[in-house]
């Protein structure tokens, strides 16, 4: 690391003529052999990589109703909707979504995944709310593209590789490691037995029963998905999430 002092150029008359000629020459050259890099959207489409952050698809099978997508959304675009089965699933308001995909990265079960859809125009702002049921199937968009274009950056310049046919906009999510968690109580003596944990659990994994003089709280580890809502909601924070045994 050092300091490099720059000298500002001084143009003599000769330089001026030279640089005028260079500018005109460049323009002349480009007029005949241009380095055009234009993508003719909508006739053709730029091919984006598989990790492109576009519209989000939702797989209800994998959702563990942990609300983390809603909690992490910086724009509050994700709100949870109560389904007929009384569980909460995400909805995305694309009028707020900033496509940061923090939700996708937060999704514990891998229920949210990306697509390469991003070029959409809505006629009404109220249509922009995509509810859970709309997120589950890939949507159809108006497409006029007949081919797709790939930017190929080579050592000396960029080249547009044009391929006939439509680019497939749905991508397989990259394989990811699953971390199975389970909820435990590590301070039973502080438990008030209020049952908030049981009330908030969308998988009915926590049960409370009265047995004689005691209230018995049981966590059904088989049903527990490790969503962590009970841990979060416990007023005295007696619960904790741990990795499932045999995982670590």
């Amino acid at each position: 690391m050092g300091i490099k002092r720059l000298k500002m150029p001084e143009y003599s008359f000769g330089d001026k003529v030279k640089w005028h000629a260079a500018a005109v020459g460049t323009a002349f050259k480009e007029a005949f052999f241009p380095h055009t890099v234009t993508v003719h959207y909508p006739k053709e489409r730029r091919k984006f990589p598989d990790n492109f952050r576009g519209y989000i698809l939702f797989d209800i099978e994998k959702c563990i109703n942990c609300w983390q997508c809603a909690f992490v959304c910086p724009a509050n675009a994700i709100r949870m909707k109560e389904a007929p089965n009384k569980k909460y699933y995400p909805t995305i308001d694309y009028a707020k979504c900033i496509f940061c995909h923090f939700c996708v990265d937060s999704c514990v079960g891998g229920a949210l995944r990306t697509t390469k859809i991003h070029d959409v125009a809505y006629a009404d702002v109220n249509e922009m709310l995509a509810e859970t049921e709309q997120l589950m199937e890939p949507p159809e968009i108006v497409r006029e593209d007949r081919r797709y274009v790939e930017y190929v950056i080579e050592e000396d310049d960029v080249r547009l590789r044009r391929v006939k046919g439509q680019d497939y906009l749905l991508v397989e999510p990259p394989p990811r490691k699953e971390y199975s968690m389970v909820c435990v109580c590590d301070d039973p003596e502080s438990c008030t037995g209020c049952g908030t944990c049981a009330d908030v659990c969308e998988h009915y994994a926590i049960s409370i029963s009265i047995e004689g003089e005691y209230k018995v709280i049981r966590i059904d580890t088989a049903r527990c998905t490790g969503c962590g809502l009970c841990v979060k909601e416990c007023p005295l924070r007696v619960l904790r999430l741990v990795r499932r045994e045999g995982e670590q």
Partner: protein
Amino acid sequence: MKMLGQILELASSNRVEIPLIEPLLGMLPPPLSELAALPLWKPLFAALVVPGFATLGLLLLLLPWIERKLCARIQWRVGPKEIVSWLGGIIQLLADSLRFLFQEVIVSRDSHRPYFTQFVLLSFIPALLPMLFVAAGTIIAIRTEYSVQIMLALVCLFPVFILGMGWSSGNRFAFVGTVREAFMYFAYEVPLILSVIAMLLVFGTGDPVAIGESGRLGIVLNPLAALVFFIATAMGTSRLPFEIPEADQELAFGPFIEYSGITFGLAYVLAYEKLYVLSALFTTLFLGGGSGPMIAPLGELSGALWFVLKVIVVMVVFAALRAIYPRFRLDQALKAGWSSILAISLLAIIISSVEVVMWA
């Protein structure tokens, strides 16, 4: 009836010779053929077809497109295209002008209403009148010894209307643009006139047809005058690097800022009209007018064709400037106009004088 006969006679006596369509005219019975040939009456033909109205109209529709396409090409992009994709969007300007035509015309509350609306129409007088004095080869509407001078005089009227438009807009930016226009006017007008004088000295006449027929290329005879004329034209038509009065990033099109709809459409073509006139003048004075290999079937049209082609080339060169240069500052342009360019134009006159003396 008699008058019509006289007119027809007059028309047929001074007709544009186009061997290609002679047989076609010959096929028609006499009065009809005479009538059909009426547009071929030279002054009428010159005013309406070439170099006049039709050519101008066509160029006005084409040239902005050419300019946009060419700049786009230099700028690594495509330019207007999707409108008729296989022709590269050639009718883009048609769409633009239709849009302008059908758009609401707003006359701002702050503007000076009568002048605001009238100047834009009045400015067509100096824009269209020079058409009568331009010679496309041998086709010319009014042939006089002083054609070039008259054209120049009319062209010099242009800025007055622009000043009027800017002034009547009642807008701060229009005001600044107007003042800039006024300054620029004085800076380029003198060298422009001097360079033309230099050429008139060489040719000894202001008759474009005669100049064209002399067969001498002005640009070879007096390259300095050509240079001055070129630069002065760029200044006069607000081409980059001298696009100072309109400077869209600075003044948002200066004098034209308040114009909308068709009034803007007219104002927009005004600069191109001026460019056309000056390019025609450039072609006449420096590029030998309509001289070029004779294409026999076209007859007199051959010269016109060469002339138009040359004009297009000149205009394209001016158009390309947009892609090459940034904008000068007002004071720099004025300084250049009043010092170096003026000096070169004087030099050009000296060269011409020397040439005239030597040949004499």
